[in-house]
């Protein structure tokens, strides 16, 4: 059986231009439209075979949507479409200034439990990290549009670092929550 639509790249699947800037509303509409057709719930009283097919296709659409809707995975996907492997991206050189900033942020996070009012400081750190992520997203978009793949990859790795840091911050937040 042939499913030409799924051989397209994710951008084509949702009828979007291959670029970093993305209209979330349009993406969401195409996504919902496809799921209306494909979701296993549409086949709840059909044969087991039809249900299995539906689970597979629905999962593919979910995967495509998840990849494009998050800036980090969208950036990696764009670089991969441009022929870069994950290893090449990871090996991209990162300037020392960025790494020192990272260590600084990480240290602040790690010492947060000792503070009298960890909530406010944590909230502040999360805002700071989120702002930095936005900056590197802009860098990525500009570099990628200008065919500067090395520059784009470098911005992408920075986004990755900061994403991890944000995750860590959120983990600390939930630890604090458990302590209450």
């Amino acid at each position, binding site marked *: 059986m042939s499913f030409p639509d799924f051989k397209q790249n994710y951008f084509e699947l949702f009828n979007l231009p291959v670029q970093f800037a993305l209209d979330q509303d349009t993406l969401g*509409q195409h996504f*919902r439209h496809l799921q209306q057709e494909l979701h296993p719930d549409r086949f709840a*009283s059909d044969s087991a075979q039809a249900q299995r097919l539906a*689970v597979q296709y629905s999962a593919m659409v979910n995967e495509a949507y998840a990849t494009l809707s998050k800036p980090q995975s969208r950036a990696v996907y764009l670089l991969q479409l441009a022929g870069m492997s994950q290893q090449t991206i990871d090996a991209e050189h990162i300037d020392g200034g960025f790494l020192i900033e990272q260590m600084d942020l990480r240290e602040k996070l790690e010492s947060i439990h000792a503070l009298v009012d960890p909530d406010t400081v944590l909230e502040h750190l999360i805002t700071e990290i989120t702002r930095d992520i936005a900056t590197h997203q802009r860098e990525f978009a500009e570099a990628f549009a200008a065919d500067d793949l090395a520059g784009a990859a470098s911005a992408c790795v920075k986004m990755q670092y900061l994403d991890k840091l944000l995750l860590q911050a959120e983990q600390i937040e939930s630890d604090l*929550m458990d302590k209450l």
Partner: protein
Amino acid sequence: MALLQIAEPGQSPLPHQLKRSLGIDLGTTNSLVATVRGGRAEVLRDEQGVAMLPSVVNYSDPGGVLVGREAYALAAQFPADTLVSIKRFMGRGRDDVLEDAQRSHYVLADDEQGMVRLVTRAGEISPVQASAEILGALRARAMAARSEAIDGVVITVPAYFDEAQRQATKDAAKLAGLPVLRLLNEPTAAAVAYGLDAAEQGVIAVYDLGGGTFDISILRLHRGVFEVLATGGDTALGGDDFDAAIADWIVQQAGCGTLGAGEHRQLNSLARAAKEKLSQEQSVAVDISGLLPGAEPVTLTRATFEELAQPLVRRTLRACRRCLRDAGLDAEVDNVVLVGGSTRVPLVRAAVAEFFQREPLANIDPDQVVAIGAAIQADILVGNRPEGDLLLLDVIPLSLGLETMGGLVEKIVPRNTTIPVSRGQEFTTFKDGQTALALHIVQGERELVADSRSLARFELRGIPPMVAGAARILVTFQVDADGLLNVSATEETTGVRSAVTVKPSFGLSDEQIADMLQASFSHAEQDKQARQLAEQRLESTQLLEGLEAAMAADAEQLLAEQECAQLHEQMQGLRALLPGSDVAALRELTESLGKASESFAARRMDKSIQEALAGLSLDALDEEVK
């Protein structure tokens, strides 16, 4: 475009063609059952006109099990034999529940595998069995109300239920003889109940504070598609904790000494009654003479109660904040829906309203809203609604991952990923000549395996000896629409494959369930055969009806003449078997017809995707954006 959709909108099938479906809210404190009749969802009541069935099972008489109010009435007299809040024990290991069991005065049976079994006068009872009794009572109520077989059931679970707890719930339904179409997250069910009622568009927060669990979910409703954006909560926080806080306070005030099991149950009932009264009144006098003969009543004011409850409410708001962030939203929601009896507490309402800066919706009874939503979803899944009516896109509540070197967790599917999902990751061997790989599947947000919940272990064997790092092992996690997991591992250079359907460590094995079914006298052998035949007939009829409709629509365009003739011949054969009672033959022919029509189904799906994509003209998109 479901193959089976035979009725056009506005031309709904005749009543006798409608399938019977139920929505069940299997709650910690109370359970309810609802169904859709004449297009409206309504809860079903018992002979006394009461909708809520206390989730209490009494095993004090070896000759018979009691469920509901009758069981609850015996709670103080037979504390160890009367199982209340059994949902807290579902899918849990013995070590997880020791403290809870002690507080509830249950006697845990010793078990080498760490399973939970409670010692009662009627023998050792697993939480799954007790839950099956509750489901059975609801089933009996539905049968009494409709006196018809049930085609499909949707059972709700807290969004935060993990794999083991979900599986245990499914096992209980199986034991009760209920055909489960779907496990539905409780907050999602509540949103469905409101969404369809008001045809809302926008972002909805569902704040669900039940007896034993707290859930918060953020959903977006857009043109009939419900997308769960994020979900969070706490499986061990609920109205029971409010009661416990009041009970502790009473003990302190009255200075009663150590309480016996029965007295403790009595104290809890007093606490609950006081809490409920305080939703209307400013203060309540608690009569403790039953516990401490001759003692004066103690007075609990609303202000004191709110002080006791404040830390618990704060905990829920923290979870709300995190959930909003997970959903990628600040605090902007269009509607807040309250679910669960504990949201009647004025302090809770005020705190939620202040946090979301919205007056919460509560026009559907917060005790019934989940069952009503489940009934609507069941009605849709069973095929009674015109197509395109409503679609739910749910997420997994907890991250799924694998143990890697050093006891660390590698997350494969992060929490809040939309399901169904299939995601793979490559791993490699650690030693030269390594021929097997042990896979340990875990669930949870923590980085260390020791802090996570262990779901299953399996091995991939037969990897050809290679140098370390040369093998390419693709591990794929597949989560279906119920949130249940399948994991497979394949060595890619040789194609050696191994797979496991995750059976949580504390779940029941298929054999155990089969044994229980065997032992359960309410499902005698002939009952089972009759049910099998009915189920098989239904499945065959569904396939035939679906194929007929599909062929009428698309055969000319999508099938060669010969294919068409072959399908017709097989359909003829199956139709001839329908009135008979040969289950095996029916099953065989149905399967082979299903296989034969698979490529036709695929072609139809293909066509409709193309139509869907082609149909998205710029005009339509503009209109959708508004």
